[in-house]
């Protein structure tokens, strides 16, 4: 049985638990894992002060573990992880999977701001909603997601995919404002509605939406067609569990080019109504 953590004592102030990665837990018994250090507010604490730990970590390399409870004040879970799998039953705090390079995180609940900032690989799946800055660049940095996939079944806040250079951000619900702002490349798919000013300052990359939206005046209409790569992309989203309709797979899309303020090599694809 792999390790299972159940939140017993919810922290009253933020708990930073970057130690919760498959690699750090590899080979540990439950008592050993409970001894690992976390930062509770401004002091060190044992993981075991907050979590009931059961099971034993999978042998060998990075395995899988499970977190249960309302972890909305627990930050940095899975930050920097390279392999293995984390399953979270409940909501989780900021910086989930920050800068991760591989592996997979599944959240059966909501995630706070900063899901997967500057990640380079792996996959994060949020079954509920996510906050602002999904897959974004940290403040001051020009580059956000560099690879990997973030799938949010629900809605997201602002600046999803800010500065993304590669990879996929897929949103089943609605996106907030400035989705794909300053994106360098990569793909953002929003099955719901886009907020304001999607793609502002984008250089390259694609933003796909299934609902009509008025773009910035620096975007220009090109044509209406059925981009073939969308069939591949949407098929992949289906495999990841998002409810993609046949009409979306075989539909025709308006292609808008932008942002003219930058390279004008990006595109926004809007499903024809």
């Amino acid at each position, binding site marked *: 049985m792999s390790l299972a953590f159940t939140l017993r004592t919810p922290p*009253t*102030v*933020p708990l*930073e638990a*970057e130690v919760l990665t498959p690699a750090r837990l590899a080979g540990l018994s439950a008592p050993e894992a409970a001894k690992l*250090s*976390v*930062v*509770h*507010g*401004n*002091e*060190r604490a044992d993981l075991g002060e907050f979590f009931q730990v059961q099971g034993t970590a999978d042998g060998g390399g990075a395995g899988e573990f499970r977190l249960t409870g309302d972890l909305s*004040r627990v930050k*940095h879970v899975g*930050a*920097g992880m390279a392999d293995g799998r984390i399953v979270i039953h409940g909501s989780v705090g*900021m*910086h989930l999977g*920050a*800068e991760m390079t591989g592996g997979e995180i599944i959240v059966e609940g909501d995630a706070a*701001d*900063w899901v997967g900032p500057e990640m380079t690989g792996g996959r994060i799946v949020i079954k509920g909603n996510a906050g*602002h*800055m999904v897959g974004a660049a*940290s*403040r*001051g940095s*020009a580059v956000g997601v560099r690879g990997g996939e973030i799938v949010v079944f629900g809605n997201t806040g602002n600046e999803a995919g800010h500065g993304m250079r590669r990879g996929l951000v897929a949103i089943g619900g609605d996106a907030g*404002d*400035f989705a794909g*702002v300053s994106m360098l490349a990569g793909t953002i798919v929003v099955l719901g509605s886009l907020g*304001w*000013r999607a793609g*502002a300052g984008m250089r390259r990359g694609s933003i796909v939406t299934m609902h009509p939206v*008025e773009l*910035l*005046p*620096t*975007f*220009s209409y090109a044509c209406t067609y059925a981009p073939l790569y969308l069939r591949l992309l949407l098929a992949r989203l289906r495999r990841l569990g998002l409810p993609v309709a046949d009409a979306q797979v075989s539909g025709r899309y308006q292609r808008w080019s932008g942002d*003219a*303020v930058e390279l*004008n090599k990006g595109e926004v694809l809007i499903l024809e109504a």
Partner: protein
Amino acid sequence: MSENLKFVPHATCTFCGCVCDDMDLTVDMDEKRITKAENACVLGKAWFREHGIEQRPYALIGGREATTAEGVEEAAQILARARFPLIYGLSDTTCEAQRVAVAIADMIGGTVDTTTSVCHGPSGIAFETVGESTASLGEIKNRADMVVFWGGNPAEAHPRLFSRYAVTPKGMYIPNGRKDRTVVLVDVRRTMSTPVADIFLRVKPRSDFEVLWALRALVKGRRVDPSIERRTGVSLAVLEDLVARMKSCRYGAFLFGMGLTMTRGRHFNSGALLALTTDLNEFTHWVAKPVRGHGNVTGADNVVSWQTGFPFGVNFSRGYPRFNPGEFTTVDLLARGETDAILILASDPAANFPKAAIEHLKRIPVISLDPKTTLTSQLARVAFTTATYGINVGGTVYRMDDVAITLRPAFESPYPSDEEILSAIRDRVRALLGGNRVPAVAPAVAAAS
């Protein structure tokens, strides 16, 4: 009025970010009142005139009168105990006090945040994204033949921005003052400031970003969709005309306010304006300047930056500074209920924060430092009465253009300064903790902020 008058020349007004240092004050030393403030604007006059010494307890602990020393002890105990303490405010006090405030936050492993996070924080984030071409106000006075005010109402909020710095004054290369400048005002409504403008662009609410973005495209010679007029209320022809003027002026200056930074789009609005400024420098000289409200909010930005590397919203709980607006900014921390103690320095969040944040303020120990009774001081566990900076207390403040000015206090206050109280708290906390608190966990660099 008594005969016991004192003349204080060259004093500085800290009411707003203009920080005018040409106040010639007359003080009635018996009444402890400033009776005359020459050169002051209407706001400054009121600031000086209304300021007297209120009879208040030195400190209140749980509503009970106490000495400053008792207040310091209680405050130190609260801060030393707290797991996620926050120090907030800072923009209406001296840099000397701000430095101690950051030192306390560092020592206890707390968070320090300033009122910048609720005014020009977005401009700070924008600055970190695109940089900024800027200037001291004297350069605008001496050189700017085109001035664009965006999202502000200086006539009522910063009157001397017009009269001393940017519109009417004569300057080295602006020998005729107002006549030598083209003045543009961009706002969502007509205000008292509108008549000063040669060109007034009335934009639809929350469409500043679209207008700025269109200007950027036009400056670069790119296409802009004619729908811009329907969406923003400003026609393409007007924008094209404006761009032609902006490209052909000798020295242009943007002065932008919270009408831009705190409306939908926030840091992207500021960023669009800063990027437009950069774009224009391909053609001629352009600068931009956020118009700041609080008297020393610019000092707070500077102090927090030089001590930590970041301008506001800085957390020290891991043993080193981390910056992340939204995560470590006060409204957010309070609304999420993450803070377990707060020291509020010269600010009144209980009067203007969102309800959820104020609700949390009521749940946690609050320490307040303020010359006056405020909503915040009234819900404080420990409330200190302090002397007013610039009037009773000397020290340093920074003008909105980063120019540091030394204050010339007009008369003494019986109350201690912010710096004195904070220093006492710092020393007591240090004694309680035995030095700086050092969390025994390695830096989470990969996951830092």
